[in-house]
């Protein structure tokens, strides 16, 4: 621009945000990545060890088993969200987008669990599913499936699916709102024209609505991915840091927490903790980059 003197006001405007963000977010992230490349030698001195921590995590006997367990559990956790939360969220959004009377009330109610703290949600469901209270037994009895009742959170093969569904129940409001916002922006004339031509709601959805909201589908997918691979609170609040039973519900967030802070007799290890965080960062960045390059580019190809 035309201004000749050094624009001090630009610096003044930017400095506080850049300083806080750099000091409390970027610097700790970099510091953590550096720590993941260090460890203590037998004398207790900190030494640079390159990628050795990562190698230990992936292949040593003590580390690799819990790490891969948490990793695959996290994939399963993510798949439940992708296959249940997002399609059901989309379905609810399509129903709400039909301008039904009282839509705002349904929307507000369905979003309610999303605003509650994960700790509270975890505990509420722990109570509801607790065989001692017998709520789940009573409901299953009422529909004649009483003998299917189990202590869902306490069994190794049902704990993770149950926790995933609790998380889906809580977070479904987010994809629903994002899909709804995109659906509302589709011009009415377009939908009207299709209906006049005799298209069913089914056809309208697959041929008009879904193609037009594909950018939002991508955003929802990447938000789900980042959120799921960073999840911790629900499992910690419901099952504790040990992510029981027998680590059946352990995901990367809880594994990171235990590695960093230790548990029971195992002492905490900041170097290995930083290593786990480094792997999580890599996973999340991979997901975000796939979204940015593959999904966005394909969308552009479709548009032009």
């Amino acid at each position: 621009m035309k201004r000749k003197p050094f624009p001090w006001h630009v610096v003044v405007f930017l400095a506080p945000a850049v300083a806080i963000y750099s000091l409390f977010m970027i610097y700790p992230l970099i510091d953590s990545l550096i720590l993941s490349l260090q460890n203590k030698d037998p004398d207790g001195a900190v030494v640079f060890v390159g990628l050795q921590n990562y190698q230990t995590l992936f292949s040593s006997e003590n580390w690799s088993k819990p790490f891969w367990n948490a990793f695959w559990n996290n994939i399963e956790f993510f798949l439940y969200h992708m296959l249940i939360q997002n399609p059901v969220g989309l379905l609810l959004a399509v129903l709400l987008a039909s301008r039904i009377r009282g839509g705002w009330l349904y929307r507000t109610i369905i979003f309610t669990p999303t605003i509650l703290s994960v700790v509270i949600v975890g505990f509420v469901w722990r109570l509801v599913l607790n065989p001692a209270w017998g709520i789940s037994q009573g409901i299953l009895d009422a529909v004649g499936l009483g003998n299917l009742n189990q202590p869902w959170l306490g069994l190794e093969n049902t704990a993770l699916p149950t926790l995933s569904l609790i998380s889906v129940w809580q977070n479904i409001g987010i994809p629903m709102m994002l899909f709804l916002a995109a659906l509302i922006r589709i011009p009415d004339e377009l939908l009207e024209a299709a209906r006049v031509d005799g298209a069913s709601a089914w056809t309208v959805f697959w041929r008009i609505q879904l193609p037009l909201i594909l950018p939002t589908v991508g955003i929802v997918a990447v938000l789900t991915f980042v959120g799921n691979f960073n999840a911790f609170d629900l499992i910690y609040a419901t099952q504790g840091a040990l992510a029981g039973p027998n680590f059946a519900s352990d995901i990367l967030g809880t594994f990171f927490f235990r590695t960093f802070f230790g548990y029971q007799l195992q002492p905490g290890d900041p170097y290995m903790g930083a290593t786990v965080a480094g792997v999580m960062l890599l996973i999340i960045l991979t997901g975000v980059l796939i979204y940015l390059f593959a999904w966005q580019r394909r969308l552009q190809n479709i548009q032009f």
Partner: protein
Amino acid sequence: MTRPAWLGALAVHVALLAYSALALFPVLLVIVNAFKDRLAIFSAPYALPNAQTFTLEGFRTLQATANFPAYFLNSLLVTGGALFLIILVSSMAAFALAEYEFRLNTLTGLYLAIGIMVPIRLGTVGILQLAVDLNLVNTLWILILVYTAQGIPLAVFVLSAFMRQLPRDLKDAARIDGASEYRIYWLTLPLVRPAIGSVLAISMIPIWNDLWFPLILAPGERTKTVVLGASVFLGQFVNDYNAVLAALTLAIVPAVLLYFAFSQQLIRGITSGAVK
């Protein structure tokens, strides 16, 4: 178009009602039972409390064993402080990015945008070390600063997008009148009030509800937030249904009331913030 239209509408209502019931059922169940005695909680979980079964026993246990008013105050201070800082520093930065053309503009914008996708939690090891170095462990300040850093990326993104749409003439007129750049920033703020409301709404929930950072950075009794306090209390009183239900009710009701009061703003915030 063979089926009558009202039948379709009815089906939509049934589906939405069913899902709404599923969304509210566990929450209502907890609130209703929080006011009943132990026997009634187990023998008639779906009944409303009546004169015989009504009790505040759980709330009394709560009062006697945990300092929830103090936890509430901590949560309020942390959330309020972080939101204030987020809005202040992000609006300043967003103003600079939207208003001036300077060499590092795009780069600064991109740098600040990294945090939209990279979760701040992954830097926890570094943050704890920093907190120890700065002597800020077990203070509310460290939580406020970390949440501010967490909120800045999205806030700058939303606010600068909004500020770019403001008409130039207004600001140029003020400049001709001799207003300083700081004064112009100050005059701009009321014009972006809707965007500020959106940023407040989307930033507030994750801060108020967070368990991770209070647990790691400020677990002391004096600095416990509601979520951490509730989590500790619930862990200790697992088998005292009265107390647990009372604690859950106390954590749920204020949040839900606030939500119903600000739901329009919140919903606008979520949809404008995440969809470009």
